[in-house]
């Protein structure tokens, strides 16, 4: 674009002035990659998030400082302009008790038990599942494997099984005289008390959850694998790397963001375990060794009707899991958001 040097001529022409104005506006707008464009891409998602999820989140936090006394009828806000009227009623009779709910948690042994159970399951299940998912993803990415699509589909299918149906099947398989023990005894191993021992019943949950979610996480890791440029592998091969070395020095580092995703989301998912213990272990049996936190929260809210306490429990859960996730993200090397 030809520019006229405005200093060399007489007073600036109209076109020059317009160009100058346009340039200065352009300078004032944030450069691409900064400023409002990011917000614009985020806007639709954030809008929906704000309308639908923000209110429940805030309300639950608000509730955690109160004690639920009953359903309420008082009007919170009314608008009446002759042709338009609206009345917002409070939905609960609440009694402000400050931090009492949070303090009560310290002496709630069942809550501690639930925390312990959930953490136990977490520590065993998540590393196991992520490792398996990674191995399967890599195996099914190898070019020599035929019918890759079919295998991937099969492995990911468990997550589509209805919760009631699959928990029932697991319940039956894990009976003392069920399929699993049948197989074990026929190869000479002792039968395991899957549902009646505290330790083994947690393992049953680990088994069920791993079965259900490994394929799902494998798919996610697979997508991440596709994003690794082929050149890196080629370069490694030229340098004489073995399969294992390629895995260690190319695959895993490149997969870091996605591996982190899988770790964090699996951790969160395990903390939210609810249906499986209810159906497989009848809600915490034996002896409350499999009662999970969310189960306990549900009980507190829907059966004991202690909404305030349940809200407080929820926020403690959020706190614990947020801290865990933050640790994982930091350790995993996410230095920026």
């Amino acid at each position, binding site marked *: 674009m030809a520019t006229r040097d405005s200093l060399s001529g007489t007073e600036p022409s109209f076109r020059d002035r317009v160009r100058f104005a346009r340039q200065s506006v352009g300078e004032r707008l944030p450069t691409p990659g900064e400023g409002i464009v990011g*917000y614009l891409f985020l806007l639709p998602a954030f809008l929906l998030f704000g309308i639908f999820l923000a209110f429940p989140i805030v309300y639950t936090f608000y509730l955690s400082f109160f004690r639920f006394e009953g359903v309420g009828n008082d009007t919170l806000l009314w608008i009446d302009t002759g042709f338009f009227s609206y009345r917002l009623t409070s939905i609960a009779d609440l009694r402000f008790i400050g931090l009492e709910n949070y303090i009560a948690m310290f002496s709630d042994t069942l809550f501690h038990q639930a925390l312990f159970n959930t953490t136990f399951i977490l520590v065993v299940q998540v590393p196991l599942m992520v490792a398996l998912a990674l191995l399967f993803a890599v195996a099914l990415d190898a070019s020599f494997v035929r019918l890759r699509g079919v295998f991937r589909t099969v492995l990911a299918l*468990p997550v589509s*099984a209805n919760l009631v149906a699959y928990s029932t*099947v697991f319940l039956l398989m894990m009976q003392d*005289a069920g*399929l699993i023990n049948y197989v074990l005894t026929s190869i000479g191993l002792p039968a395991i008390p899957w549902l009646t021992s505290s330790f083994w019943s947690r393992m049953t949950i680990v088994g069920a959850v791993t079965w259900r979610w490994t394929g799902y996480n494998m798919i996610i890791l697979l997508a991440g694998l596709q*994003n690794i440029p082929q050149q890196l592998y080629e370069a490694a091969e030229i340098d004489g790397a073995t399969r294992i070395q390629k895995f260690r020095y190319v695959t895993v580092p490149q997969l870091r963001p996605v591996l982190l995703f899988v770790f964090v*989301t699996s951790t969160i998912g395990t903390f*939210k375990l609810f249906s499986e213990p209810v159906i497989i272990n009848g809600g915490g049996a034996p002896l409350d060794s499999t009662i999970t936190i969310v189960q306990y929260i549900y009980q507190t809210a829907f059966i004991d009707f202690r909404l305030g306490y349940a809200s407080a429990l929820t926020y403690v859960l959020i706190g614990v899991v947020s801290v865990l996730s933050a640790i994982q993200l930091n350790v995993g090397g996410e230095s920026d*958001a």
Partner: protein
Amino acid sequence: MREETRREAVWQFLTYAFILLGAILTLVPLYWIFVASTLKESQFLSSTSPRLAPGDSFFANFQSLQARENVQFVGHVGEMTHYIDLGPFYIAYDFWNLWNMGAIESSIFVAGVYTLLSLLLCSMAGFAFAKYEFRFKKPIFYAILATLILPIQLLVIPLFLLMSQLGLTNNYWAIILPWAANPLGIFLMRQNMRSIPDALLESARMDGATEFQLFYKIALPTMKSSLAALSIILFLFQWNLFLFPLVILDQGKYTIPVAINQLVGAQRVYYDQIMVAATLSIIPIFILFLFLQKQFVSGILAGSVKE
């Protein structure tokens, strides 16, 4: 040389063995669900000798499932009832009444619409977080991540209240919209989009592309497999949603998990019908997965940027 090919063969063998073992272990419970749907309840639940061969009661069980009054699992043909009267003859126009949706159709419809909507929203948001800088980026991201942790049980009551105020009870939008900005999806897209080379975007900008074109023409195509994975995540999320649809939908619009739960009666659990329903509900997912496998193509980014 032969050493290498031998080692190669061993690897291939191990890989295949591993995959096959995984596939078998995965299929056993699923196979059992299928077998259970073909047996009568008493045959299935006796734990003395686990039966592995399918029986012949599939259609009988299916018919008892369809005969239940309080849940319609598979839809059936309906009747058009709205007519325009043109004197000598009528023209019916309400084609949507031709098919009464059952639970399976409802689930497919809701999950499908949800997936498409959410794909768009999550990839846009993920792109924003991965490739742009703006104030409050970190806090917003962590806030969205934090909602992931919230167990749905407690959200149900305030959400229900919100929906009643908005007049959205018994409306599919009530279960599609709240999680359209799915934190899981946003998180995934962000993680995956980080691997898009910035140089690629910069060079496109210098060629005069608008930001949206960057998103549409560069980011999305390279993210095919991530989008496929995201579709699976979103579809399954909506497919398995239970508590909130239970509370907000009425009978005619039940999705599959809610419908199946109706089969857990007052004292009795109707296992044979549950298993039939479960078997049938795996089929759409199976088809979806197979269809999406084509998108898992690797190395799209290879060679896109000269080192």
